[in-house]
């Protein structure tokens, strides 16, 4: 190891002593040291690493008045005739002492900027990088004084089992939160060690085009490519990305900004039926603080009625077979008719109060009408490949166009399903990163205790044992439920808002660190990670995926496809040889609900010949035979005989 020239010396006075945790050092006037710089102190067999947290400068001037007098009261006067003694004094927090025991105050010795190896030791990364079964995931470079050292996170502490979860905070547009997560996912996919098993990501796109182009390449600068190389990564976009989006209310155009034909092959509909909704009906209810009675009735529907023959001769002789929302509505109507016919005393049906039944019915029919594109009436579902998840695959669920209630439903169901499958170890992968942007909306600090918030809390508390990991982002950390962010083993901060920094959550940061955070350029982040004793600043390159702005330019969304065109588009995702003209001819003059049903059936059956199957579902058209003249009728004399008497 080449010992760099010292850039400063530790100074300890009675007023400003060295402690085992903190020390001061002075430097020359012209120094590369800045807030966040990592330094090394070596003296008498003891090595101490620290990170600079604050700095002051002063001269031997007694009072400001002396300065005024010295310049004859003229601010424009030349510098002091005599150069004054002047000091740059830095305070640093200890990152690591070697040896660790006995723990002693930082020795008074020379201070050097940290080298690559120093950074590795200072951040305790030697415990998990550069050896067998390493678990380091590059997150960015630490840069100071012309030095650049890769910084790694420990995947045992990022994706479990030791700790897990990541939260990133910072102001809109400048904090590069979404970009950082995209970059980190790239890094995880490229470096997650084989001995840790497989990993996939499920990303909820909650904002417009944010995550719509993860499989498209970025245009990166040479400098950015160099950074990738420095981190041992290749700047290539994700290769296996699967998009899921609900339909628009027309039932055939997808409700996503990723609707350009060239991107259709891996963009699939997300459609749920009654069963899927009913299992998570609680989500729909507790917004309005619905009681246990409603839960009981929902359980009754789920266990006794939906998807099976339900017999109740008092309602009607034919058994109910509720598969769809329409069937359910029929069932509800039968109950209401029955109750009405009972007249007085008819407020209760099978121990369930009519008001409760009405409430449940209203919530359910509400979701089916308000989120028409997500919830289908004919009982066919198109869903994420539960049980068939694949290593290093990204599954993006685009909920940006859904109303909040439906978003909650999608979250609740998707996360619950992930959890169930991971518990049974049959998801297809060992670890899943769930990325939720705008976390403040789904797990807000104040506001009601919604099902989704409870679920996220549970995920943050127990997910790491299962390999279910939450990556979350929000502008203001203070607006998110404390335990959800508190459980994140790794916390990242981009450019921050001063008012936010003034909230109690940031009290441990030095004023200088706060100032640095408030002025942090794009692409720089402050990281807290269990191995790092102090927060560390790193720089990361832009993610290797197309920005949403460029994506929208290159792949403008297919706005307002005509019904037959949209149908053809859907069919071509099953078989790209299907011609638009053929579909037009087939669909022409047919009722839209019929066409949608045929499409749903085709999606469900995945037949070998999708077009033929689709066409068979619609049914053959019967050619008209115009009958204008009628054959004359022969008259027959003889009577009927006695055959029919």
């Amino acid at each position, binding site marked *: 190891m080449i010992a760099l020239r010292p850039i400063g010396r530790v100074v300890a006075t009675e007023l400003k002593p060295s402690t085992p945790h903190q020390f001061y050092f002075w430097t020359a006037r012209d120094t590369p040291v800045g807030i966040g710089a990592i330094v090394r102190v070596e003296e008498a067999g003891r090595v101490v690493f620290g990170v600079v947290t604050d700095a002051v400068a002063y001269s031997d001037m007694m009072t400001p008045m002396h300065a005024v007098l010295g310049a004859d009261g003229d601010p424009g006067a030349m510098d002091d005739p005599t150069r004054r003694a002047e000091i740059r004094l830095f305070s640093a927090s200890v990152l690591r002492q070697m040896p660790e025991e006995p723990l002693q105050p930082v020795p008074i010795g020379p201070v050097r900027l940290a080298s690559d190896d120093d950074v590795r030791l200072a951040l305790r990364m030697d415990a998990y990088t550069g050896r067998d079964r390493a678990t380091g995931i590059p997150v960015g470079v630490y840069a100071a004084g012309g030095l650049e050292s890769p910084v790694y996170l420990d995947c045992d502490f990022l994706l479990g089992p030791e700790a897990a979860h990541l939260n990133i905070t910072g102001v809109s547009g400048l904090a590069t939160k979404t970009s950082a997560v995209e970059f980190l996912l790239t890094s995880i996919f490229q470096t997650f060690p084989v001995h840790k098993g497989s990993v996939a990501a499920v990303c909820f796109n909650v904002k417009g085009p944010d995550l719509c182009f993860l499989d498209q390449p970025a245009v990166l600068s040479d400098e950015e490519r160099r950074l990738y190389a420095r981190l041992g990564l290749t700047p290539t976009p994700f290769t296996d990305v699967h998009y899921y989006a609900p339909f628009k209310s027309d039932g055939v155009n997808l409700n996503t900004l990723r609707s350009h034909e060239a991107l259709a092959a891996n963009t699939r509909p997300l459609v749920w039926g009654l069963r899927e909704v009913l299992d998570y009906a609680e989500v729909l209810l507790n917004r309005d603080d619905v009681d246990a009675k409603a839960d009981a009735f929902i359980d009754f529907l789920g266990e006794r009625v939906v998807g099976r023959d339900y017999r109740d001769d008092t309602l009607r002789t034919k058994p109910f077979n509720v598969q769809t929302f329409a069937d359910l509505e029929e069932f509800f109507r039968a109950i209401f008719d029955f109750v009405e016919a009972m007249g007085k005393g008819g407020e209760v049906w099978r121990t369930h109060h009519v008001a409760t039944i009405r409430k449940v019915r209203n919530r359910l029919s509400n979701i089916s009408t308000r989120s028409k594109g997500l919830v289908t009436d004919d009982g066919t579902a198109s869903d994420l490949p539960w049980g068939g998840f694949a290593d290093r695959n990204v599954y993006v669920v685009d909920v940006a166009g859904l109303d909040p209630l439906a978003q909650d439903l999608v979250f609740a169901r998707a996360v619950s399903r992930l959890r169930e499958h991971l518990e049974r170890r049959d998801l297809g992968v060992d670890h899943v990163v769930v990325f939720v942007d705008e976390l403040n909306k789904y797990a807000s600090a104040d506001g009601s205790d919604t099902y989704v918030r409870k679920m996220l809390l549970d995920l943050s508390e127990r997910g790491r044992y299962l390999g279910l990991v939450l990556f979350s982002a929000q502008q203001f950390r203070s607006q998110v439920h404390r335990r959800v962010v508190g459980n994140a083993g790794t916390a990242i901060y981009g450019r921050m808002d001063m008012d936010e920094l003034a909230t109690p959550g940031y009290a441990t940061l030095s004023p200088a660190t706060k100032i640095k955070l408030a002025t942090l350029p794009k692409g720089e982040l402050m990281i807290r990670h269990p191995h790092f004793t102090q927060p560390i600043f790193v720089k990361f390159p832009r993610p290797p995926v197309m920005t949403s702005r460029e994506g929208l330019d290159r792949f403008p969304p297919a706005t307002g496809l005509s019904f037959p065109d949209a149908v053809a588009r859907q069919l071509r995702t099953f078989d790209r040889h299907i011609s638009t003209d053929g579909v037009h001819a087939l669909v022409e003059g047919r009722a839209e609900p019929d066409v949608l049903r045929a499409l749903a059936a085709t999606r469900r059956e995945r037949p070998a010949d999708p077009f033929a199957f689709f066409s068979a579902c619609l049914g053959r058209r019967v050619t008209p035979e115009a009958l*204008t003249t*009628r054959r004359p009728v022969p008259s027959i004399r003889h009577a009927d005989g006695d055959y029919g008497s």
Partner: protein
Amino acid sequence: MRLAHIADPHLGIRQYHRQTSAGVNQREADVAAAFRTAVDDVIGQRPDAVLIAGDLFHSVRPTNAAIVFAFRQFQRLREALPGAPVVLIAGNHDTPRSTETGCILRLFEELGVDVAAEAARRFVYPALDLSVLAVPHQALVGGERPALRPQGPERHQVMVLHGEVEGLLPADRSGEEYGGAVVTLRDLGGEGWSYVALGHYHVQHEVAPRIWYAGALEYASSNLWGELVDERRKGQAGKAWLLADLATGRMERRPVRQGRPVVDLEPVVAEGLNAAALNGRIAERIGRLPGGIADKIVRLCVREVPRHVSRELDHAAIRRYKAEALHFHLDLRRPEITRETGVGTPGRRQTLPDLVRHFLAHRPLPAELDRDAFVRLGTDLIDAVERDPAGG
């Protein structure tokens, strides 16, 4: 626009053993008479079109007498109503099993009847501004189905179809009983049709607004007791055809007088009765029937009859009832295990029906099947086969 909707005449059916003085099976004569009565009434009502929704004949190869009779009826219909199209479709009973058999229904094309025997056809009558989509049984079971949707610019969009609408029959009498093609209400596409004339289910029934089964013209299904139960539930008595007025939406039930009553006597519970007492109870039930049982089709269910009691019953008397009625079915059911027998079987073990019944009563069944209903269905089928060798 007024439509006559007739369904399931089942001409040529042969049931029970009695013959008319002319040597025709009595039930065969009954259904023919019912059809003739219906045709007379249709002619009297002068509808704009006549639809016959399948199962004109009870079998693919009806007797010559039945064919000649039907020909004569269509001739009368066409002669009396020369401007009214007559549309005829094949049902599951009169659809040939193979194309070589050929379809007798085509014969009526000579009379200007529009026939759909295998494929669906759409007949357009410009003078009436009427389109009739005719969907025979075969069109629903073989290959690609036609689109069951209104088409074309005609104001009156009518469909005539032979099949079972899913969920129509109670679960204990599943669709297979009738052997028809199953369509869902959604397949039928309720919206947009002026009228849908259905055939196959023998009880008149409104499936949905403007979608009707006319019901058969006589009791001619393999489960006529079930038919009676359904009719009783609906408060219907007897058989009829339907006159549909498309302008007003009014449906007129046009009853057809039956050749003879079909009576399901009030069941007897034999628990605690000895043979003599039970004989008395049976005689009492029969005696209470106004007009007696002569020439009627009658069933009497007796529950909880121990084997020794049924053995000791007055079989001479039972034979007398049997001779008097056109058909008398004494349905004796043992306690606990369900047992249904025709007269004469008690004591004679190991007949074919006995074997079948025993087998059905003990074979493993899927949990959702009702064993009683299952056994009853099997026994009914065996009974039907034994009595009606010509049936199809």
